C-alpha cells in the first residue's frame, strides 16, 4: 500500500514538473511540497517522529478552527445551537465565503486560555455539538453549498449527561446524514482526530490531514491503559497504532497530506492557513460539476473500500 501512495505522489509530481510554468511561483511551491511528502512516505516515520506528531497535534499554540476561519473566510456568520436544547461551544458551525463562493463549515474548537478551554470543554463535544453540526450540514444540502469540516477533537466527551443525551446515537446519525448529503464534503484533520468524536464529522468525499495532525481510533493513553494496562505507555501505543499523516495516507484512510510551515502550524498561522486554504480549494474543485447522486454514491464507495482485506489468513 505504501507503494500505491508513493506512486500517486510520483504521478502528481511528474505532472507538475511537465507543466509549463503557468502559475509561476505557486507551482514551484507545489513541487517542493510534493517532493517533501514523497520523501516522507518513502522514509517511514520512526516511533520518535510519530510521538512528535502527537505532541504537535496537541500543541497549545496550534491554530484551531476559528483561527483558520478568520484567515480563509469572508463574511463569516457563526450559527449557534442545535435547535433542541443547547449550544455546544466545542463545535463551531457557520456560513462564509471561501474563494468567492458560499460554503458551510463545521469544526471542532478548543479554547486558548483557561476560561475559554472550560467554556469549550477542551474541544470535547457533547451530543448537542453533533446536533449543531447536523443542522449546518442539512442547511448546506438544502442550498447546495459545499461543506468543509475541520476536525480537532481529543474525543467525544465521556460524561454522564453526554451519555444520557445519546452520545453514541448522535455520532451514528451525524455520519448517516453525511452519507446522504448531495453536496461536496471536504474534511481536514487539523489537530487531533480522536475516535468517534472525529468520525462524526469526517464522512467526506475527500479527507485531508495536516502534516502534524493525528487520526486515532482511541487516544494513545487510552490504548495504553487497555492493552499495556498503563496509560504511561502512550508512546508505545502510538508507535503501534501509527496515527500520523504519512501512515494514514499509506493506509488509504486519507487522500492527501496538507503541508505545514516548519516546524509546525503553531509557528506561522498565516502560512498554515494559506496552505490549508489551497488544499481545501483544490479539493473542492475536484467535485465541481459532479451530480449530487454521484457524489454520495462515490462517497459511500470510498468508505466501502477503505482498507479492504484481500487475503484470508
Amino acid at each position: 500500500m505504501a507503494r500505491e501512495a508513493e506512486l500517486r505522489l510520483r504521478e502528481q509530481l511528474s505532472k507538475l514538473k511537465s507543466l509549463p510554468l503557468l502559475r509561476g511561483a505557486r507551482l514551484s511551491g507545489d513541487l517542493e511540497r510534493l517532493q517533501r511528502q514523497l520523501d516522507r512516505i518513502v522514509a517511514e516515520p520512526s516511533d520518535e517522529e510519530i510521538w512528535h506528531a502527537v505532541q504537535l497535534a496537541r500543541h497549545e499554540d496550534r491554530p484551531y478552527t476559528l483561527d483558520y476561519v478568520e484567515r480563509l473566510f469572508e463574511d463569516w456568520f457563526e450559527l449557534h445551537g442545535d435547535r433542541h436544547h443547547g449550544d455546544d461551544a466545542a463545535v463551531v458551525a457557520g456560513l462564509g465565503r471561501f474563494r468567492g463562493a458560499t460554503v458551510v463549515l463545521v469544526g471542532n474548537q478548543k479554547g486558548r486560555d483557561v476560561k475559554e478551554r472550560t467554556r469549550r470543554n477542551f474541544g470535547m463535544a457533547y451530543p448537542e455539538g453533533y446536533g449543531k453540526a447536523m443542522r449546518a450540514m442539512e442547511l448546506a444540502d438544502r442550498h447546495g453549498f459545499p461543506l468543509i469540516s475541520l476536525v480537532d477533537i481529543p474525543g467525544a466527551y465521556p460524561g454522564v449527561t453526554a451519555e444520557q443525551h445519546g452520545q453514541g446515537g448522535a455520532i451514528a446519525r451525524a455520519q448517516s446524514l453525511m452519507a446522504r448529503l448531495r453536496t461536496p464534503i471536504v474534511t481536514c484533520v487539523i489537530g487531533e482526530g480522536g475516535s468517534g468524536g472525529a468520525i462524526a464529522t469526517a464522512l467526506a468525499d475527500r479527507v485531508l490531514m495536516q502534516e502534524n495532525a493525528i487520526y486515532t481510533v482511541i487516544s494513545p493513553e487510552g490504548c495504553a491503559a487497555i492493552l499495556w494496562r498503563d496509560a504511561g505507555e502512550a508512546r508505545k501505543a502510538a508507535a503501534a497504532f501509527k496515527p500520523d499523516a504519512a501512515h494514514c495516507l499509506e493506509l488509504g484512510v486519507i487522500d492527501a497530506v496538507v503541508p505545514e510551515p516548519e516546524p509546525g502550524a503553531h509557528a506561522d498561522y498565516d502560512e498554515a492557513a494559506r496552505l490549508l486554504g489551497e488544499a481545501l480549494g483544490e479539493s473542492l474543485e475536484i467535485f465541481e460539476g459532479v451530480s449530487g447522486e454521484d457524489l454520495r454514491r462515490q462517497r459511500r464507495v470510498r468508505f466501502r473500500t477503505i482498507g479492504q482485506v484481500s487475503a484470508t489468513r
Partner: protein
Amino acid sequence: MSERIDVSIEHKHAPPQDGGRPHPNTCPECGSHYRDDELEANLRVCPHCGHHFPVHARERILQLTDEDSFAEEAAELRSDDPLGFFDLRPYTERLAEAELSTGLGEAMVIGRAAIEELPCELAVMEFGFMGGSMGRIVGEKFVRACEGATERGVPLVSVTASGGARMQEGILSLMQLPKTVCAVEDLRDSGGTLISVMAHPTTAGVLASFASLGDVIVAEPGALLSFTGPRVVQQTTREKLPEDFGLAESNLRHGHVDAIVPRSDLRPTVARLLRLFSNGA
C-alpha cells in the same frame, strides 16, 4: 433421571474460581449457580432473578431462528494484521487464540435465516471473540449482510455485543464506523429494514455506528449501552454515576431505545416486527 435433578440450590453461592472471578455459570446478581444445560434450557437467563447471562453467537442464532433455517455466509473471512500490531503480544496471536476459543473466524456471524417462517438476514456478534471488537472483517461482514438483505429483499436483524472498535487495527478500525453506516444508508435507499437488537454490552464504535441506526432498536434487560463505559466516565469526570448509568433501562428512559425485551420474548418480538415491516407481503 439424574439429569432432571435441579442442583441450583446446592450450588448457590458457588465459591469463586479462576483467580477470584466467579464461575461463568454463577449468577453475578443473586449468586445462584447452574449447570450449563440448565442455563441453556432457560435461554441463559437466571431462573431465580432474571439476570441475562451472555449468549454466544451460535447459541443466539439457535435461540432466534427456525430450526435448520440458518445458512451462514462469508464464514471464510479472516482478519490479517495491517499494522503489524504488537502490544504485550502480537495481534495475530490474539486472533488465533480467539478463533480457537470461540470456534469462530471473527467476532460476527452473518447468514440467511427465518424467524417464525419469516425470512431475514442475520448479523450476530460474538463478545467472546476479542471483546466483540469491530475490525475490518466485522465491518466487511456487516456490509455483506446489508447487501444480502437488499438482494433478497428481506429485513436485516443485527444482534450486537461489542466493546467497540478493534484497537489492534488502528485507524482502519475507526473506518468501520463510516463503512457500516454507509451500508445501512444503502439498505435504507433500497427500502430495506434494519432491526437492531442490543445485547450486553453494546458500546463505543458499534453503538456509534450501525447498531444505533435500526428502524427499531430493542435492548435486552440490564445491557450496558453506552458510548463510554462507566469506569472511564468515573475516572475522567469524578462525577457520581447514577445506579443505572448506561444501562438499557436508562437508555429507554432517555429515549434511545424503543423497548426492553426479555430474552424469552425476543424471538416472538422480532417475528412481530418482521411481520409488521413486511406489511402482509
